[in-house]
């Protein structure tokens, strides 16, 4: 419910703001750090931007990233997991070693290196590497890079178990193709834990985004995200502590909503699933 409310507000925020004539990026140097008022319900920040509007705009960015990365990671992980679990052999072994490594490594330090890469040196065209939205794509890519392993392991495990179940054998002896077996017989069996894992990972991605943005490596201005807002607010922590409070509370509420939703889904969908590893 909370999640829906935040999402709805984030989507509805910009149009309403446009009607009222408030732009989240509009700078108003005469009204910096203003106290809450009717025009600016949560006051303004260090450049006179409306805090509520920026919170909602940031919410849109954070939620978009969270959803996009979680779904992309789930899709890639499912594909890899199906192949590895069904085929087995050396593909499976390589995959499991890789996921082991990704799960056990200290990821944030490595992600910082990746986030700091110069895209132009990687051969990305300059107009794209310098565009405003590239930081968004980059974050999603990083989140997928570390996030696909959960889904891959889940799906692999299920594929391994169902591969030799009678109904799959029956389908195989009836001449069903590999694609058909994977899609119709094996995938539905992992759907429940997969949905749970994806829901939980939305929260993880939002946390990751906020950390990277906070460190100055994530979303770049003029785009706002909760992480960048916190990063700006940190410098003003003694003069305007409330500025640091709002984005943090938003991140916290969103992530906890994702996690509680995932937990509820888990109890509803599959009671026997292990605690998230």
């Amino acid at each position, binding site marked *: 419910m909370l999640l829906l409310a935040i999402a709805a507000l984030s989507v509805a925020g910009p149009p309403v703001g446009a009607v009222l004539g408030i732009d989240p990026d509009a700078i108003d140097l005469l009204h910096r750090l203003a106290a809450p008022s009717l025009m600016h319900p949560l006051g303004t920040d260090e450049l006179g931007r409306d805090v509520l509007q920026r919170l909602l705009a940031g919410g849109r960015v954070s939620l978009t990233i969270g959803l996009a990365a979680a779904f992309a990671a789930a899709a890639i992980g499912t594909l890899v997991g199906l192949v590895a679990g069904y085929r087995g052999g050396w593909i499976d072994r390589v995959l499991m070693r890789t996921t082991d490594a990704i799960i056990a490594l*200290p990821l*944030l330090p490595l992600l910082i*290196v990746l986030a700091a890469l110069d895209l132009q040196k990687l051969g990305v065209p300059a107009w794209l590497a310098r565009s405003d939205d590239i930081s968004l794509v980059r974050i999603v890519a990083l989140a997928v890079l570390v996030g696909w392993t959960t889904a891959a392991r889940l799906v692999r495990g299920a594929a391994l178990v169902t591969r030799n179940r009678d109904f799959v054998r029956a389908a195989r002896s009836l001449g069903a193709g590999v694609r058909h077996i994977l899609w119709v017989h094996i995938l539905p069996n992992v759907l429940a834990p997969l949905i749970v894992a994806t829901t939980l990972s939305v929260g993880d991605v939002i946390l990751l985004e906020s*950390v990277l943005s906070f460190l100055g490596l994530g979303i770049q201005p003029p785009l706002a995200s909760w992480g960048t807002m916190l990063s700006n607010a*940190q410098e003003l922590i003694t003069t305007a502590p409330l500025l640091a409070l709002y984005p943090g509370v938003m991140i916290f509420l969103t992530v906890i909503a994702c996690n509680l939703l995932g937990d509820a889904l888990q109890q509803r969908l599959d009671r026997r699933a292990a605690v998230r590893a």
Partner: protein
Amino acid sequence: MIRFTAIRLLEIAAMLVLMSFVIYALIGLMPGDPIDLMRQADPHMTAADVARLKTVYGLNQPLLTRYLAWAGQALGGDLGYSRLFATPVWSALLPRLGNSLVLLGASFALAMMLALALGTAAARRPGSRLDGAINLLCFAGVSVPNFWLALVLILVFAAGLHWLPASGIATVGAGDLADRLRHLVLPVATLTLASAGGYTRYVRAAMREALAQDHIRTARAKGASEARIILHHALRSALIPVTTILALSFGGLVSGALVTETMFAYPGMGKLIFDAVMGNDYNLALAALLLATATTMLANLAADLAYGWLDPRVSYR
């Protein structure tokens, strides 16, 4: 057992070699190489100077050649010179590794004690009000952005109440033990609170499973005291799955330490890595990343070995 350890150590070494190459290649892709920076700082440098410098430092060689040269030196114990600290990399690295281990060790121990206490309490009466409250607390701990938690703690305890110092590792000039401990309180609290939530959930799940087993019922029937049942019978079997999970959580702890150390300006490995990457200090960044990875993998191995010690049924092939 010895064979298992040896194989794992070999794997770790292989992994480190692989990682060092990947990181070496990636770092070359970061914006601003040192020669460019020198050129910006000195308008008298000509293109010929740049070319000469690149030859001197071997930067015109192919990537693999440069990497092998670095690796050869590194194996000889020479990790190069840190530009940021103007000292050899080793002397920038070692004291910070010590600082980080203090921070990580203290947080891990505290988080684990908290998790064992809360997780056991919750598992004893599943579905009770206490269980629900602990569950909610866990979710809060998992969901709170740790840098924001740090910020709030600084606001309340350092800026607001002036109880504790907000940053650093010791007051300049007064470096006694009590002072160091006071500087540790907030970073350790941040890291503990951020990681205890997840641990508690694992402990609770493992405890519930353990308490449902037959030997617990037998112990109850025998009339063993509740404390003995929990501590002696249930905890021992619950610790086994918990250890596995913990083995995988060190990486997350190190990541958390990076944020926490940066927030509190605590001179540890995490902050060092961040500063080195941001400051284009290639030698330092590379060595620090590798050291952090090696530490994490050794901790994983230690947890694996502890697993075998806790559960005699496990055999290492």
